[in-house]
């Protein structure tokens, strides 16, 4: 059975707790990502910030009563105006600190279990807590298909 190191994306794209939310929004948009790990000054993972966290920062009151997955999409001008206001806020105030990380030696079955159980889209991969890559649902699903006899699915 394959391990995380065999199929993780070897990419260290990340932000720090000091990064401004507007820079996170730009980064996520440029890279077409749903979120990135938050690291300290030695690249150790300390949290995760997603596009949802960025949107939540704009609608703090509304989130409590409405479904956060659909907010922000009804009025783009409102979103832009709010982002203008909270854009200079720091990642530290909005990131998720209660996150899951995996090591390179984690098996595909263990990874699949945690991603499904916790409904995770992307999971940082660490070595001695330092970021060395990331695994996401698409790379996991393609590796599971390959392990079950469907060769050539993964790029």
């Amino acid at each position: 059975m394959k391990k995380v190191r065999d199929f993780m994306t070897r990419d260290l794209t990340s932000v720090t707790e000091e990064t401004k939310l507007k820079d996170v929004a730009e980064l996520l948009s440029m890279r077409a990502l749903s979120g990135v790990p938050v690291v300290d000054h030695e690249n150790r993972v300390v949290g995760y910030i997603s596009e949802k966290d960025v949107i939540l920062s704009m609608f703090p009151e509304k989130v409590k009563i409405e479904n956060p997955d659909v907010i922000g999409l009804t009025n783009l001008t409102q979103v832009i105006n709010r982002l203008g206001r909270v854009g200079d806020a720091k990642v530290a105030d909005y990131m998720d600190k209660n996150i899951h990380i995996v090591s390179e030696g984690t098996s595909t079955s263990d990874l699949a279990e945690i991603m499904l159980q916790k409904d995770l889209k992307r999971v940082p991969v660490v070595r001695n807590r330092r970021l060395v890559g990331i695994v996401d649902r698409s790379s996991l699903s393609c590796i599971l298909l390959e392990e079950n006899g469907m060769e050539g699915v993964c790029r």
Partner: protein
Amino acid sequence: MFKLGKKKKEEPQDKKSILTVTLNPAFDHILFLPELKLGTFNRSPETFRMPGGKGVNVASSLAMMGQEVVATGFLGAQGSRMFEESLRKIGVTTAFVYVNQEIRTDFFVIEDNKNRQSLIVEKGIPIELRYLNGFKANFERLLPSTELVEFGGSFPEGVSCGFLKELVREANKKNIKTVLNLKEKTLTECMEGISAFLVYPDLRESKRMFGQDIYRPKDRLKIVEELQKHGAEIVMLKYGNLNYLVATKDEIWEGEIELGESKIMIGIRDAVLAGFISKYLETNNLGEALKYGLGAGRSTAKNKRNHPNSKKEIEEFVLMAKVKKVS
């Protein structure tokens, strides 16, 4: 797997990586033609694209040797996904800073019937101050897990010698070895006030450095001495298409690379450096490291890509590489 904050048994101390910095990378577009006809229609029967730039070439070569390597630099966001994916596919870890611009492209035209290569390079993308600050912070975060930093290639608009010097000093402060693989003109302008573990000037355009001619043996030694005065522990020089020299204060080695029938010269010079670095970090032996570099260069010459074919092929060519100690 574990949750952040929960105690977990510490993993064994990890091996440190080599970090390559390419401030002005480009997608290399290789177009093969029987013959380039100017002012009219040309159809290329074979084309391919690959990530390029001096540092990127070094990173690709190191990954083929099984080294743990991280590539960083500025990358135009539009069109760069394939660039990074190609690097990761061969084992390079990417840590590029995206700039809200289109990725730079270089065009290589290789004419089979004429045995000729032409290169058209695009101007680099302009880098705003906020991206420079972001890059520096990102660079500093990568240093704790880095053994050696290689700086390669040209500067894009908005990046100056001062910025390079800041990065080199930051690495030196943390006792991390630095390699300067830069054009002679850039190196001459930027090396004042900084010192590097290894200096490898690119003399393909100028053929001269410090007023000395790279093709004259006595002049080459003067270039070596001058670079050593600037603090270089090791000096590496390439002269002509085939000849390489490496020197410390104690010894000088020379070697000649065999290129066979290779028509594509892209990346050979950088693969020799990568091979040298890889072996020298392992053995501290100048002659062995040069041999390994020449093996890597020859394997790259056999490959259409800008890196060696495989570690196995490098090792086969190393057995045939000829080097000699000249002092």
